[in-house]
Structure formats: structure tokens, C-alpha cells
């Protein structure tokens, strides 16, 4: 993954999910993102390749890192960024997603970034607007930019993805991050282990080409990467687990469980973390093992790449 491929175009108009992308698309995005890593570390972080372009952030769900990451990414590229505040908008007055889309569309944006609590909301939006739509997370379906930034982080540290063994652990059922990562890591040639209690494991997941584990020690055995997911208590309407305490005992990442992975294994987490529930707080902050902060940092670069490529 060396040379520049500036002339090459992405095959899709919208970024709705990793499922829709080709390996070529992914390589284009990752290559483009690499260039922005150094820009983001330099003194003058602003360029003007998206000058005159309008980016609308439409977040129906609360978000700290993704929303600010997209906002910053757009601004660094010189776009006019508008973040809609849903609590004050007409959506609160009963406007449907399609009507909102039509209204925004009339303002001629070049790109809309959407996060929504319902799976498929970005697909619906993309059918109704003229501009490109970037999915910043829809329900439990996909979160493509998160998977891309995770891949970039892994490549940055391990220099490759092909042949790595990667464990994704925790609340898979409610996780769009897990789904996008399964597609992406599979495509890039990693072996993916999924670790979750049966109550948090989606039906027929093995059909996506992963290995299923309910025993975390077996699942992380000899892994190069251990990716932890947040327990999404806010999406759990009935009893999935007995207690956080028991969950931590069996599925929380502790030094003991991590010892089954490779010695140089890296810890990842898309955030926000529930310290002491899915991950030991010391491990989360261990700069030799945890790349959680780097994930956030590279997130901006990946989103800059996506904005640039899908704005064209």
C-alpha cells in the first residue's frame, strides 16, 4: 500500500456501509487517509480542497467523538460545516426523516453525514437527496468510518492486516462497529474471532465468515489484536445479563485474559468505554498495549479522506 492513487475514483456515490465497498475502494480511502495523518500533526492544519462545499452533520443520536471528528475533518478541509441540533429541529415536531431530507436537499449541500438510531436510515436518506451521504452509524447495522479508522490504526502499528488474528469481544448484538469491522477485516484477509455471551451474539453470525466463541480465553488465544466493545446498556430493554460484575468476570478484558493473546497484542476500543465493565481501567490506559487514543486521532484523518473522496 505505497503509491498514491489520486486519479482513481471510489465506486460508490455514498458511504453507507463497508458491505458496499470493494477492496480497491478501501485501499483508496486508507491511502488518502495516510496523507492526512501528517497534516493533522503539522502546525497549519487547514487546507482548502473542500472550499465552497457544504457539509451537513445530521446526528439523531448523541455522539461526542464521531460528531466532533466529522466536524473537525470538514473544517480542516475548508468546507462549510453545519451541525444540525436535533433537539431544536422540526424532527422534534414530528417531521419524518424523508421530509427533513427534502428540506436539507433544497439547500444544496454537497455531503450529508448522518447518524440515526434506526438501521437503514442512511439508505433511506440516500434515496431522497442529490448529494453524497456518509453513514456515521445507523442503528446496529454499520459504522463504516469507525471500521476504516480501526484498520488504519492496525496497519499503522502492525504494518499489515492480512494474516492477523483479531478478536472482537463484547456486545456484538447491538454493535454496528462489530458488523463493519467483520466485513472490513475479512476483506483485508484477517482471521476474525468473535467473543460474546450467547445473549449478545446475533443469530447466524458465523455465516459472515467468523469464528464464534463464548469463552473469552479461547477467543483471544494467540490474537494480534483484541478489540473490545462497549456494553450498550441503553439499548437493552430486557435482561440480557445478570450483572455488570459477572460480565466483567467473564467478558471484561483483564491482564489475565489478555495473557492468552500474543505478547505484543494491541488493545482497541471504539469508545466510549465503560471502565471496569468491559475493560480493566489500567489496561485501557497502558500506552504500550492500548491504541485507543490513536484510534481517535486517526479517526479525523479517515473522515477527512472520506469527505474528500465522496465529495468529488
Amino acid at each position, binding site marked *: 500500500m505505497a503509491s498514491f492513487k489520486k486519479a482513481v475514483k471510489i465506486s460508490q456515490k455514498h458511504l453507507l456501509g463497508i458491505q458496499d465497498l470493494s477492496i480497491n475502494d478501501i485501499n483508496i480511502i486508507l491511502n488518502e487517509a495516510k496523507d492526512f495523518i501528517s497534516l493533522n500533526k503539522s502546525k497549519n492544519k487547514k487546507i482548502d480542497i473542500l472550499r465552497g462545499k457544504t457539509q451537513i452533520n445530521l446526528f439523531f443520536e448523541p455522539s461526542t467523538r464521531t460528531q466532533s471528528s466529522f466536524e473537525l475533518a470538514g473544517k480542516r478541509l475548508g468546507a462549510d460545516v453545519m451541525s444540525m441540533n436535533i433537539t431544536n429541529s422540526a424532527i422534534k415536531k414530528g417531521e419524518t426523516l424523508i421530509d427533513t431530507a427534502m428540506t436539507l436537499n433544497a439547500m444544496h449541500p454537497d455531503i450529508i453525514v448522518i447518524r440515526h438510531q*434506526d438501521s437503514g436510515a442512511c439508505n433511506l436518506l440516500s434515496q431522497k437527496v442529490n448529494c453524497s451521504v456518509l453513514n456515521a452509524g445507523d442503528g446496529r447495522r454499520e459504522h463504516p468510518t469507525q471500521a476504516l479508522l480501526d484498520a488504519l490504526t492496525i496497519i499503522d502499528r502492525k504494518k499489515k492486516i492480512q494474516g492477523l488474528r483479531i478478536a472482537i469481544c463484547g456486545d456484538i448484538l447491538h454493535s454496528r462497529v462489530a458488523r463493519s469491522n467483520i466485513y472490513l477485516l475479512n476483506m483485508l484477509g484477517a482471521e476474525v474471532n468473535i467473543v460474546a455471551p450467547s445473549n449478545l451474539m446475533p443469530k*447466524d453470525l458465523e455465516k*459472515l465468515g467468523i469464528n464464534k466463541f463464548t469463552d473469552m480465553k479461547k477467543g483471544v488465544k494467540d490474537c494480534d489484536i483484541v478489540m473490545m466493545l462497549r456494553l450498550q446498556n441503553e439499548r437493552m430493554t430486557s435482561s440480557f445479563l445478570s450483572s455488570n460484575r459477572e460480565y466483567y468476570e467473564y467478558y471484561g478484558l483483564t491482564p489475565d485474559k489478555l495473557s492468552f493473546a500474543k505478547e505484543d497484542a494491541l488493545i482497541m476500543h471504539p469508545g466510549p468505554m465503560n471502565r471496569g465493565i468491559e475493560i480493566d481501567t489500567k489496561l485501557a490506559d497502558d500506552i504500550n498495549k492500548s491504541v485507543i487514543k490513536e484510534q481517535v486521532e486517526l479517526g479525523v484523518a479517515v473522515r477527512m479522506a472520506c469527505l474528500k473522496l465522496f465529495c468529488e
Partner: protein
Amino acid sequence: MKKQYFLNAYIIDPKNSIDEIGGLIVNENGKIEAVGKKVNKNNIPSREKFINLEGKHIFPGIVDMRVFVGEPGYEYKENFRTLSNAALAGGVTSVVTMPNTQPVIDNVSIVDFLKRRGRDKAKINIYPTATLTKNLEGKNMTEFGLLQNKGIIGFTDGVKTIQNSRLMSRIMRSAYDLGSLVIQHAEDYELAENGTVNDGIISTKLGLQGITDLAEKVIIERDLTLLEDLNCRYHIAQISSSKSVEVIKYKKNEIDFTTGVSINNLSLNENDIGDFRTFLKLSPPLRREEDRLALVQGLKDGLIDVIVSDHKPEDEESKRLTFAQAATGASGIETLLPLSLELYHNDSVKLFKIIELLTHSPAKILNIDKGNMSIGNDADFCIVDINKPWVVKKEKMISKSKNTCIENKKLQGKVISTFIKGIELYKL
């Protein structure tokens, strides 16, 4: 009305075991005078004009056991007039309407209104059901006896299920005493909570909450267990999975009950949902291809008794939403027969069997003398070109709501005319 002669048609009338080329004579009062192979050009008066239906089929008018009409309360989705026109275009002459209206059909006073509206606005035969429980709350039984006396044909909570086992056993006792028909929509609420599609690889990929097939099986098993002691007239509205077919197979020899299936579950599977097509959000949900095939086999094995349209008109606004928010159900009364014919054209089920499940079999469960062409009976029938190819187009649909789940599907077989009491009320 003049006497009418229809000759050289292929006639199927399952009740009377007619499956042959022949003719049909409708007398001056709109009743069947003669039917079958003995009716031909040689034994009708030579001065009489006849209609030559060579290459065409005559079936008894279809009896659709599961139809939602928007009246009262949701007239913007479908009223009796639009329902009637849509039904006639599909060869359907009798429908059983669901009580999920606003207000719900749960008391005697509203039945009069319903019967009057049905009679004045609809040309087809309307057989209304009432709810099993007051206001669909699943708590207190409705007055089965009194409602029945007013003309209610059966009892069901429509899209809802009786969850409480004790209440269900009491419903069965009352229904036994009064000879009432109980129709259950089988879905355990806890297992199906917030579900929108089949629980499986599609729900996992689309990130949608799944409905496990166990939710259906649990209720069917419970009801059939209760039924062992309290054998009332009991009908499972629709089944959708191979697991349910297995339970029915096991119980069918021991106790009396009947089972329905929607033509949607017989024709489509979960893969058809594609990229969040909300028009395919149905209840019960479309399941795996293996399930669809098990349902077709269930038809052939005599385990399933009726095919229904599960006609559920929904306006466009309630479908133009995210999958989780969109309304459930599809408009399908006018495509029930053509879509059923697909099972014949692809050699899955014999034509006679399909017609039986659409006519005589539901009539028998409902205890009505419809869905047949017995001599002296009302001449309710349809003329069908079973080979005519056509494409389903939303804008050509007659129903007030255009939420078909088979948009752009190529079908073979179309209704040419539909008659009720000898009067041609629909002509292609």
C-alpha cells in the same frame, strides 16, 4: 336477468369434485342451474346465445379469510367500496374482515354499523369478525354469543395474540359452549419484542431486531395443548415457518383445528427484503427459503387448510419511514389468486388443490355455503385466463393503498370477469 350460458371452460369446483371441461348455466335469479361437462352446446337450446370460454377457467368466487378494511377509522387506507373493487379484480367474492379498526369491533352496537356499511358500499360478501377481547387489550372476553347473533362470523384479535394462557383457556371454553370460531394470530410478544424481520442472517446483516420462529411455535404449541381438553373451533390465522409445520403435523391426527398461511409467506422469503424494502415488512415475517418450501409442502400434505391474502392496506406515508418505524403489512387481495397460480405454474402444487384452499376449504371452516358452485347456490364465480402474463404495477392497483409487496413482479394468470349472484361486477 336473462339466463346465461358459459361453455367450453375448464371448471374447477372442489366442493363438488368438478375438475373438467364443461359449461355453467346461471338462471334468471342469479343462481347456479347446471355446471360441469354435461353442460355443452348439444344440450342447451339452440336459440340461446352462449359465451364461449375456450381456454379459460371458471373457479368459484374466492373466499379470503384475512382482510383488513379501514372502516371505521382508517377510511383513508381502505373503505368498503375500494376493498370491494379490489377484491373483485382478484376474483374474490367473499371476505372475512379483521376487527382492528378504530373503534375496534368489540361490541354489538358497532356491528350494526359495520353490517350496514358493508351492505351499502360493498358489492362482495362481507363476513366481519369481532375481537376476542375488549378493546384488543387481551384481558376481558367479548360477548361471543350476542355478537354471533348479530352476524359476527368468528373471533380474533387480528394482529394481536392472546398472551395469557388462563384467558385463552377460558376463551376456548366459552367458544366451545357457543360454537364460536376462534382465530389466533400466533406470536409470543416477549420473544418477538421489537422484532421486524426473521431472526437470522438477514436480521444480523441489516442490523434489525429479529423475530424468532419460536415466537410462533410457542403459541401454537400452547394453544393446541389447551385445545386437547377444550375442543372449540380453532383456527391458526397464519403460520410462517417449518417449525410450525412440524408441530401441526404432529398434532393434526390427535385434535381438530385448522391452519392458514399467507400467500406472501408462500411466495417470498427474507432475501426479498433486500435493501430495507419496507413494503415487505410483514407479520408474520418472511422467513428463510427452507421455511417457504416447508409451507408449500405443508399445503400438499394437507396440513395447511387455507391460503389468505393478509390484505393490509397502509398509506404511503406510513411506509416511507425507516424499517423499524414503518407500518407492517401489504395490500394483496387483488393479487391473491394470480400469485397463488405461481405455485401451479412452477409445479409446486396442483391447481385443484390451490383452488380448494382458496374457496371450499375456508368456507367449510367458516361454516358458510360459499366458495362452491352447487346447484341452486348464488352464482359467485370468476373467469380466469391462467396463462395470461402481466406485471404488477403499483399505479394500476385498485385498492386505495398501493403497498404491494410484489411490485414489478411478473405473474401469469389474470381474472377476466367476476360474478356475484350472476351479475358481472368486474370485467378486465
